């Protein structure tokens, strides 16, 4: 008998993959890169699902986005495409749409205290998405500089 956690986890894997690849289509990503977009989104979402019961949502988002960022930087280097191609579809599942909706709903129902709390949290989470992406970019630049110092013969690609 398969435990229910495994089933729910694999369903999360499948749905996040489809959702991220679908966003690749909506954003007009090249056909060959759709699977990679889906992969980046899937890894980020699974990291978030596994981390969110243990950590604060903001920190879990930073870690998940960092993973999306590292995967996107690696794919961008391999396929010589802009990073944004992979990272945009990858972070879509992490965007706090649900929280923003709840906040708006509380505003409408005149529960202003609760609404401001939820809105602040949604704002923090969208900030943490950006921080995760920036961190992965910094890491990428550091690794790149170090590897170039060791092998000076390697030529720098014109654009990342």
């Amino acid at each position: 008998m398969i435990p229910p956690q495994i089933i729910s986890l694999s369903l999360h894997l499948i749905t996040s993959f489809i959702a991220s690849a679908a966003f690749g289509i909506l954003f007009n990503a090249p056909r060959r890169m759709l699977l990679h977009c889906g992969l980046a989104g899937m890894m980020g979402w699974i990291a978030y699902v596994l981390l969110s019961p243990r950590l604060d949502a903001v920190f879990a988002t930073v870690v998940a986005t960092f993973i999306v960022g590292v995967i996107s930087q690696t794919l961008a280097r391999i396929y010589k495409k802009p990073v944004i191609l992979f990272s945009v579809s990858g972070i879509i599942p992490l965007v706090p749409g649900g929280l923003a909706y709840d906040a708006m709903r509380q505003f409408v129902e005149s529960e202003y205290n609760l609404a401001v709390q939820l809105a602040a949290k949604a704002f923090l989470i969208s900030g943490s998405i950006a921080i995760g992406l920036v961190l992965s970019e910094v890491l990428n630049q550091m690794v790149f500089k170090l590897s170039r110092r060791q092998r000076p013969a390697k030529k720098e690609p014109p654009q990342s």
Partner: protein
Amino acid sequence: MDNAGGREHQKTASGRPAHGDVGKENDLHMDGHDLAVNGAESYFGKKSSETAEPIHADDAEQGHIGPAALCLLAGKMMLQSGAETYRVEDTMTRMAEAMGLGGSHSYVTPTGIVFQPSSSQSARLIRIVERTTDLGKIAAINDVSRKLASKHITPAGAYARLADIDQAGHEYPVWLQIITAAAASGCFTYMFRGSMADILPGVLCGGAGFALFLALHRLVKVKFFAEFSAAFFIGLLAVFFVGLGLGQEPDKIVIGSVMPLVPGLLITNAVRDLIAGHLVSGLSRGAEAILTAFAIGTGIAVVVTFF
């Protein structure tokens, strides 16, 4: 026929004096609007024709294009496709260097680019009216600038490639976009802890909402209104489905179906621009994101208030 009309409209619009009388301006505006309404069906599936025109006109007149104009064209196309500010500046600088223009300066905001090829030449300005998200275009232009920098293609070849890229529409047909939006909505309904029974209404609401958004955006050209109406429609549909017994929680259905409209890219680009020191771009992108979120939220809020 649409294209010819669009070109004519553009020419008259750009050729009119700065202090043209209000009546005339209004007239022109109506003209463009009518064109959009009549042509809504024929260019359903293609990008707005306005962006592609000036290039072709230039091409026919001179057949050759200066380095500065080439850089500006690439920058304009990237910005219209939703590239980050630093990438646009970087691409323009690299292309200028590849064509022997050292010491160029560029100032990029989401609504316009100022580019000075070198200290001896005068600065050029280009206005950006419409912005979408088109990752394929960004990748293609990036590729062109990469090849130009490594001298794999000549400036004339680069110009031809850019014109081709600009002419190309969305790679995926509209029906496929609607189906993928519907599929994504169903997936998000599950991911945001909706029950299994909520997935099917999520798919239906998401697909219908996105289709309505696309249709309204073509008709009205006011994005705020299209987003507001689509969100309102999604809310109504979700309440209706739950009333029918299809689905359990309208909240989860709405959250999932609204996701294709959410300005995820704008929010992220805004904060990245701010962190990178592009303060004006960051703030204006943030304003656009907040406006979009507000439109969606208001649409849903109206439904919540009534039901």
